[in-house]
């Protein structure tokens, strides 16, 4: 009989094999990054513009241009465009963050020669018909009314302004009146500057054959302006003690809590230690916040912490939704767990677990070309190469508990976190 209480022998994770992206620069200056996965029939292509919300001078503009770019061009109506891609079984989506805006195509590889020239036409001659703008505003103003009933959504909407002040380019929040202030001219001017005359990058994964790349190069051969947008590098917030900002919601069964502070970026020498410290605190299912606040107290369905990296601005956050009556108790426990990291050395056992968890998780990030491309895209955004992972892995393998404590003391201070509660306190 085998002894089931004894774990199988653990194999160390020695090295992680990456599926690496190949970068081709076309004569037009367009950068194309690709990872081939030969055993599938599909392609994902993301065309990424320097057109995130930080570049807008009015709320909603970046997101609207991004969304409406597929809703009509000189030759085709919104319906014709949607039908063309739907007919091929393709999925054409848009996404817009604070830094970037993308158009994302998922399709069968065989559809590429047909779809790309059409897509190029749509993107380069978008004309933002007034009726599409009206429809967008109508639908989204009503969605906004639904969203502002959600405590978690409200906390996210308010948070960046609380963190950075209302004038910061990352501080855009949406309010009901914004839907009345957008004009077609605003959209066209943003489109002309950020899409039409600008260069872009392309990320391709899946069945990216040589023919696919050739088609792409043939189709997207117009020259664009390289925009070097310099974002101000941010320093950490002044260490002022920050009180909780409460946004009351009557009848809320749960409160949303969102806390955070500006922190160091991925290139900083202390980052690997912060990464480990954050993972211990709230970065995985077995984290201290989850163990304490979910698994021990049952206050929440989920709680987590993380470091979010925008261009030139990284910030640390803790977020959760908890039973309204235990909101204050949850804040106390978050404070307690952050202080524990600063005051008490992590045990060797916990460190070992977290190290291996992180290494396994990095490996999982390379399951299939689509995930592997998401990793590359992150590196590219941060101006990092694959040596970032080699270095991170090395640092994590040799991480010492004293280093984690030092980093927690420098970068994880509950009292100076900006704090938002939506619901009840």
């Amino acid at each position, binding site marked *: 009989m085998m002894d089931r209480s004894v774990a199988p022998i653990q194999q160390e994770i020695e090295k992680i094999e990456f599926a690496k992206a190949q970068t081709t620069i076309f004569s037009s200056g367009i950068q194309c990054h690709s990872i081939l996965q030969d055993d599938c029939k599909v392609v994902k292509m993301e065309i990424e513009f320097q057109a995130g919300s930080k570049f807008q001078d009015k709320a909603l503009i970046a997101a609207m241009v991004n969304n409406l770019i597929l809703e009509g061009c000189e030759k085709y109506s919104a*319906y014709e465009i949607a*039908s063309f891609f*739907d*007919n091929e079984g*393709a999925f054409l989506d848009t996404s817009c963050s604070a830094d970037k805006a993308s158009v994302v195509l998922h399709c069968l590889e065989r559809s590429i020669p047909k779809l790309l020239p059409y897509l190029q036409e749509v993107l380069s001659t978008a004309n933002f018909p007034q009726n599409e703008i009206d429809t967008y505003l109508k639908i989204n103003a009503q969605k906004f009314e639904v969203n502002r009933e959600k405590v978690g959504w409200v906390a996210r909407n308010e948070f960046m302004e609380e963190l950075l002040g209302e004038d910061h380019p990352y501080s855009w929040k949406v309010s009901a009146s914004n839907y009345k202030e957008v004009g077609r001219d605003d959209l066209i001017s943003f489109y002309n500057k950020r899409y039409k005359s600008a260069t872009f990058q392309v990320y391709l994964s899946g069945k990216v054959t040589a023919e696919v790349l050739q088609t792409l190069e043939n189709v997207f051969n117009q020259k664009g302006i390289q925009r070097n947008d310099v974002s101000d590098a941010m320093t950490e917030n002044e260490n002022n003690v920050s009180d909780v900002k409460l946004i009351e919601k009557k009848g809320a*069964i749960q409160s949303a809590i969102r806390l955070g502070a500006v922190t160091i970026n991925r290139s900083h020498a202390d980052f690997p230690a912060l990464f480990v410290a954050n993972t211990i605190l709230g970065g*995985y299912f077995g984290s201290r916040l989850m163990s304490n606040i979910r698994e021990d107290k*049952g206050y929440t*369905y989920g709680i987590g912490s993380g470091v979010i990296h925008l261009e030139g601005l990284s910030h640390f956050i803790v977020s959760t939704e908890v039973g309204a009556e235990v909101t204050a108790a949850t804040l106390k426990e978050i404070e307690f767990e952050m202080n524990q990291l600063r005051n008490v050395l992590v045990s060797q056992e916990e460190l070992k677990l977290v190290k291996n968890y992180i290494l396994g998780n990095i490996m999982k990030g390379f*399951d299939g070309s689509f995930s592997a491309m998401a990793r590359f895209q992150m590196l590219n955004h941060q101006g990092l190469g694959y040596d970032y992972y080699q270095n991170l892995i090395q640092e994590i393998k040799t991480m010492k508990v004293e280093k984690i404590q030092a980093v927690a003391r420098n970068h994880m201070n509950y009292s100076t976190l900006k704090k938002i509660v939506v619901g009840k306190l």
Partner: protein
Amino acid sequence: MVEFKEHQLKNGLRLIFNEDKTTPIVAFNLLYDVGSKDEDENKTGFAHLFEHLMFGGSINIPSFDGPLQTVGGENNAFTSTDMTNYYITLPKNNIETAFWLESDRMLSLAFSEKSLEVQRQVVIEEFAQRYLNQPYGDVYLLLRPLAYKKHPYRWATIGKEIKHIETATMEDVKAFFKRHYYPGNAILSISGNLTFEAVKELTEKWFGDIPSRKKELRKLPVEPLQKEERTLEVERDVPLNALYYAYHMPSKNDADYYAVDLLSDVLSRGDSSRFYERLLKKTDLFAEIDAFVTGDTETGLFIIAAKLSAGVRYEQAEAAIDEQLLEIIEKGVGDEELQKVKNKAESTFEFGKTSALNKAMGLAICALVKEPELFNYEFTLYDKVSAEDIQRVAKHVLRRENRSKLIYKAKKG
């Protein structure tokens, strides 16, 4: 084509293995043939609560997550009306840890009181976060019991009410485990860069000595044929009036299932679909409108869900939807329109085969519904559907007397 091999242990456990030489991780998916449809109507939400308890320690191993994370692994699980599915991804050289952990909790749980108390509270918070504290969160808690009168699909997986979770006892937990968690009621599906021989050997080693049990024949109450339209009206503190139609439709083992699924795609999949183009964009009646199937193994629901623009009366909205339904019943769909939704289905299937985890999970679910081969040929079942089929099922499913209607009104000021 996703290649796989199969093996069945003497105790009844089914093993499915897909060799994937390209991935650095292994996906280990263990599916149990138990869902909320197997619950007692006075103890609903139990399959899902039980899923939480599966992480509270097993007979020989006090913690499930810790040892897994220590070897670089990660896991999660979900419960639906038809199944409870547990999945792990981990570096391939530590694959044996997954076998060790999963086989021990199939053998027996620790049944700790503390775990029951905490997970009970966590599930209550999940209930609050996802169903009560969200605008429109309770729609399916209302719609299911309206559409089903006898079949256990009449309650949602989270349960009918919080009280059932609050009153669950350790005896209930033990009885549920005994009844549903054993080798013959499970399907183990693995995808990764391993050999079939190695996987078979590990499966025999860790699961081989778990006692077998006779698989209970499932006897679910049959839902009587609905003979007249049902309507429920509620008022909630939400910004917009909403409207939901639910129609009974064929089960996943009926060829017509695929025709009905494509019918919902014709109506609302993609920005060129009928609802999107004709109702959402061309009229001012709706803020949102969708049609979809619940995808249940047994006879599920075809649902139309709409949020009405401010100021629009229910009669106007309903007339507009009914006009679209009538058109498809009377005139059917064009060949090009049908080809379009088939093409969408095809690319969706192809994207579903691009990671080890998708493959392991997909093979297991297909094995449960019918057979693992279904994972490779399911698209052909869509491809076979003709325009006549769509019109025929539209006529049959979209009958008024087959419909349950939920009027979900926004409370005034």
